[in-house]
């Protein structure tokens, strides 16, 4: 039955998450924006003590489970601060890959230590200097040598890459080719635990936004890992129908794209609420129900921002709901991501405009949210990549039919 009621326990978790975001994220958000590459140690300890306060609280581990709860809680966290949420110790995107493609043994081996000892992080390393969305062009290689894989290559834009490698128990899921001649079919993912010789952080990026989150360049030089650190089928299956190994890994996106969409929603809602508060202070009332011609330009802008936010939220909830229903949701995940990425980019940009000198100033967080939000139209597949995926799916076209 079509229903929009949120279960009481998720509603309660949202409330708690929001309170915690207000308490732990908001007060230090500006500081870590202005002090890039400085680590919020206190926050990290707090999040490690109570992982439900951070990313793990939303992604899989929390009360939300896999489903609408996940995105509702992620929204609350990034409403607090997106960059700081991304600092959350925990398995993160690397963990998502493990959950989607790992064996129970691998899950146990790499995720067991989460929840005990010192803070640790998981990381996903896909992008390379010469390749972004075109993962078939990955040049990092994994060569088998007896019981080991030997990895060589360079990765960039690895979120939490430094934290994953600098802390015991962390790991990086590295995408690498076992057979360059096989193209996409030769791409596999490998778990590289922290402390493995031959992997190092080359530099940390300076970014437009989400500056609290470390974005690392990683170098792999004869980096050796055990043979069974490969995720999914080690065989290279070029036959499309059997390309399960690749597909399986790729299904990580079915989880992460709605998550990123939710991240966008959180930042967007922060901006909307900020504008609303200014309206309240100024005695401006938004008149829902007026004919469009009789609205003020300000009302119209704000309503359009709200409506496009709502449209993105609906797609995000639906993608997450389908995942909870164990339905194939790749189309919906890409739709949610594409829509939320651009919608919130525009919402925050417009919010800055509406508030004029106040909006453009670093005295408030609004301009930061505009900078932060932009990443959601870029990572986990740009808006264009996700739109292309949607186009292929609705047309029933493969990569050759629609390049």
């Amino acid at each position: 039955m079509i229903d929009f009621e949120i279960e009481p326990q998720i509603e309660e978790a949202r409330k708690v998450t929001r309170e915690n975001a207000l308490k732990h994220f908001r007060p230090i958000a500006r500081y870590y924006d202005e002090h890039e590459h400085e680590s919020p140690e206190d926050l990290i300890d707090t999040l490690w003590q109570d992982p439900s306060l951070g990313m793990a609280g939303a992604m899989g581990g929390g009360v939300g489970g896999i489903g609408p709860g996940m995105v509702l809680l992620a929204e609350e966290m990034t409403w607090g601060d997106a960059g700081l949420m991304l600092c959350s110790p925990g398995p993160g995107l690397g963990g998502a890959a493990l959950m989607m493609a790992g064996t129970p043994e691998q899950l146990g081996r790499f995720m067991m230590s989460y929840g005990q000892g010192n803070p640790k992080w998981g990381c996903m390393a896909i992008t390379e200097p010469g390749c972004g969305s075109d993962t078939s062009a990955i040049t990092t290689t994994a060569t088998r040598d007896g019981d080991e894989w030997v990895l060589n290559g360079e990765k960039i834009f690895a979120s939490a890459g430094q934290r994953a490698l600098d802390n015991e128990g962390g790991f990086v899921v590295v995408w690498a080719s076992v057979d360059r001649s096989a193209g996409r079919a030769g791409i596999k993912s490998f778990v590289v635990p922290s402390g493995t010789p031959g992997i190092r952080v080359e530099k940390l990026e300076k970014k437009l936004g989400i500056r609290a989150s470390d974005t690392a360049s990683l170098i792999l030089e004869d980096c050796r890992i055990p043979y069974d650190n490969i995720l999914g089928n080690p065989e290279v299956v070029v036959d499309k129908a059997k390309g399960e190994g690749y597909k399986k890994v790729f299904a990580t996106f079915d989880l992460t794209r709605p998550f990123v969409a939710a991240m966008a929603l959180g930042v967007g809602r922060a901006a909307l609420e900020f504008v609303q508060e200014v309206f309240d202070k100024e005695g401006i009332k938004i008149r829902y129900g007026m004919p469009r011609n009789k609205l003020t330009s300000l009302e119209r802008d704000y309503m359009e921002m709200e409506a496009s936010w709502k449209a993105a939220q609906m797609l995000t909830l639906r993608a997450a709901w389908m995942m909870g229903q164990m339905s194939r949701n790749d189309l919906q995940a890409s739709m949610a991501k594409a829509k939320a990425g651009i919608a919130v980019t525009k919402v925050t940009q417009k919010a800055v405009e509406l508030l004029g000198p106040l909006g453009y100033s670093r005295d408030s967080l609004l301009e930061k949210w505009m900078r932060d939000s932009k990443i959601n139209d870029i990572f986990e597949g740009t808006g264009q990549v996700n739109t292309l995926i949607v186009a292929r799916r609705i047309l029933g076209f493969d990569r050759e039919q629609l390049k």
Partner: protein
Amino acid sequence: MISFSPSEEQKMVITTMKQFATDEIRKIYRDCDEEGEIPESIIEKAWEFGLIAGSIPESLGGFGSEHSAVSGALVAEELAWGDLSMAMHFLSPALTAFPILEAGTEEQKAKYLPLFCEKARKYATAALLEPRFNFDLNELATSARLDGSDYVLNGEKCYVPLAANADLMIIYASLDGDTQGFIVEKGTSGLEVGEREKNMGIKALATYKLGLKDCRVPKSNRLGGEAGCDFTRIQNYSQVALSSMAVGVAKAAHEYALEYAKQRYAWGEPIASRQAIAFMLAEQYIDIEATRPMTWEAAWELDRGMDANKDAYLTKMYADDMVMTVTDRSVQVLGGHGYIREHPVELYLRNGRGFATFDGMAIV
């Protein structure tokens, strides 16, 4: 618990409506548009589905299911996917019946609702819009004033569907500044149905101007009796209906453009193989898929008895823009072929443009 899945019963209704739209509506919609007429036979068939009677309690002669805006939204989308003129035509009796059902007095319900449960087709409608710039449904120029035991209505209405045939209609008028509904029966003195209107779109649906010259309505026919009605809420039901119809029209346009783009070859491959075309189609699809659950949520709020004003209003605003963009881009995908009346997209565009104007012309 959040769910995007219609109930089994709703799924059956969707299937039935889709089938009807495909087998019947789609067969004749172009002729209806060119000739400005909908054949009696299909109107009868639509009546037989009991789209209105199904929402009226058994005690009043209906089928007894509960009136549901969500279910109504599902029906409205499918019918409008078939053809907007016909969707509005088939659902026009609801323009009288549902406001009475939701906001009428027990007497009004008892008197009028059984009519909609009869085997014989009832014509009924509503008059909200007025022929002037900056029309504002909260500040109607049509006025109602109490005079003895009657309300006296004066003013001019437009875009009143099927007014010439209607046995019954609700006329909205300003009563001391508030928009209120008045149930008016055919032949009431002072109720003058004007010439049929000529519009850019919905050409198969006959709409009329209406003149009200000291039109006297018994006091008891004020919608909701002495207490009146919550017009905003009636408006919200209408916004849900129109938004769902916008989704239906947009979906029809999108599907046609998509198929065309797959079949049409240029430079040795389907034009859909070019990103410029493919991205238009994908963006259309995303926006349609986003608007539908927005209409559902507003409808769900209504069914729950919650305040739906903000969501219904924003959804309608979003749907108005969405259907305009989608139908325009569908014409664009077809290029020159989109501009000729051999293909339906130009019709979708003409109909699509109307949504921002069609206030109060449909209800769920």
